[in-house]
């Protein structure tokens, strides 16, 4: 081994024993640091996994959804538009979609009602998501009362419960027959919630969308790529903003507070004085201090990332459940397929180790430039 490498190892040795000497302080610092990285890592893993899941699941979503806008708000679309749109070149199929929300005053949950023709579904029967079944405590054969527009309850019998594996898309769904849907909400006749359009060739979608807007200026087409992009960027905005700012702020605060509180204690100052008097140089002490920082931040990073992974993919984000649930009564329970994105791990590394190092540069320099003769005068 070269002397330079030996020197680094020797100083690392001393850095470790000097960290170990102040176990109390350093272990609690390590714990707080790990906790912060654990939180950020959990969020990164969670959002990444959701993004990917969304991308894969929504591959089968409609190519194009056409909504009608009235006074800037979403309004039921005349079904007659469907025929005209179907006539556009490249459109292979246009299906009206009927869906809406239902607030259930009994449980306080919001359900999503979807009318889709399923020949197996009997009149006044419904298929429900497992979230609905869980929240309303009903199972196959039970009745779910839904209030119609006039306020009188209509009883629907539960004919089917969607498999729990599909909870990520269907937890709050109630599927019913189209005529039941229309009757329940007294839906304006000849209207649908929106239109699902599929195209023979996906490359032509943009042209089709342009044509639709041209022909029907009151509509808004939403491309599948836009739906996917929504989910791709859906978590970047505030998760990025809030978490990064929060983490950096918290981290800097902690380090700052720590340095303020303990500062260069007289003891530490004396110790560095001793080191310098017995032949350590400023560079050596700087190296010592940066090793102390690296040991803490590297350990915290590795532990935090591993724990975050376990938390998200083995314990289903149980610690964040409350924040994710928010006010909602009905909360889907799903297991995510793990994803590790090297870019984000590297980014996380930079964001967690970088500020720590930046915050410690000046304090370590101050510590390292203690005069060597300080040890002689005390």
């Amino acid at each position, binding site marked *: 081994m070269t002397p330079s490498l030996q020197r680094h190892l020797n100083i690392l040795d001393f850095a470790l024993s000097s960290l170990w000497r102040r176990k109390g302080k350093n272990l609690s610092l390590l714990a707080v640091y790990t906790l912060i990285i654990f939180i950020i890592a959990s969020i990164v893993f969670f959002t990444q996994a959701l993004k990917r899941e969304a991308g*894969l699941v929504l591959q089968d979503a409609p190519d194009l*959804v056409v909504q009608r806008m009235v006074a800037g708000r979403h309004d039921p679309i005349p079904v007659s538009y469907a025929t005209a749109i179907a006539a556009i070149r490249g459109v292979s199929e246009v299906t009206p979609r009927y869906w809406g929300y239902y607030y259930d005053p009994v449980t306080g949950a919001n359900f*999503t009602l979807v009318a889709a023709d399923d020949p197996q579904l009997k009149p006044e029967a419904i298929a429900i998501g497992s979230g609905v079944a869980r929240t309303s405590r009903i199972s196959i054969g039970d009745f779910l009362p839904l209030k119609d527009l006039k306020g009188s309850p209509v009883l629907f019998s539960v004919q089917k419960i969607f498999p729990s*594996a599909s909870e990520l898309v269907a937890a709050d769904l109630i599927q019913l027959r189209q005529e039941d849907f229309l009757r329940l909400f007294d839906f304006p006749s000849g209207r649908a919630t929106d239109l699902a359009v599929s195209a023979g060739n996906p490359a032509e979608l943009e042209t089709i969308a342009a044509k639709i807007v041209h022909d029907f200026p009151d509509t808004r087409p939403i491309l599948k790529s836009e739906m996917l992009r*929504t989910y791709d*960027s859906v978590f970047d905005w505030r998760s990025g903003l809030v978490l990064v700012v929060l983490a950096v702020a918290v981290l800097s605060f902690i380090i700052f507070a720590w340095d303020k509180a303990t500062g260069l204690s007289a003891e530490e100052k004396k110790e560095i004085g001793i080191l310098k008097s017995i032949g350590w140089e400023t560079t050596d002490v700087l190296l010592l201090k940066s090793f102390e920082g690296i040991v803490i931040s590297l*350990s915290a990073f590795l532990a935090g990332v591993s724990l975050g992974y376990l938390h998200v993919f083995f314990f289903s984000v149980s610690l964040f459940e409350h924040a994710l649930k928010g006010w909602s*009564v009905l909360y889907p329970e799903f297991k995510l397929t793990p994803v*590790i994105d090297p870019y984000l791990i590297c980014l996380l590394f930079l964001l967690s180790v970088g500020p720590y190092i930046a915050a410690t540069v000046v304090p370590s320099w101050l510590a390292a430039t203690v005069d060597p003769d300080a040890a002689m005068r005390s």
Partner: protein
Amino acid sequence: MVTLRKSTQFFLLIALNLLVLAALVLHAEVRSREPAARRSASRILVRQLKLSDLCLFTEARYTRHPAMADRHAPFQDHPLALEHFPSGSLVTPPALRREAK
């Protein structure tokens, strides 16, 4: 008794940590290659019911159907206002939809 020097112990610890991390990467790799039976159930429903969104947050329209949300209503407070709902701090406004010309 041979005691390892502290730096070696530290390297061993880091190596152990990296090993755990590598195991997790491997786990992720293996799990994501599994035949996605679970996902196929979702995909079938998406196809049958022509769904366009994930059911993540059911508390409000725009969190339940981010891709279908009204353009103006849901994100009136965007981007600087504090969210009304806790989950609003995780859900971002959808990417701008282009007005097709």
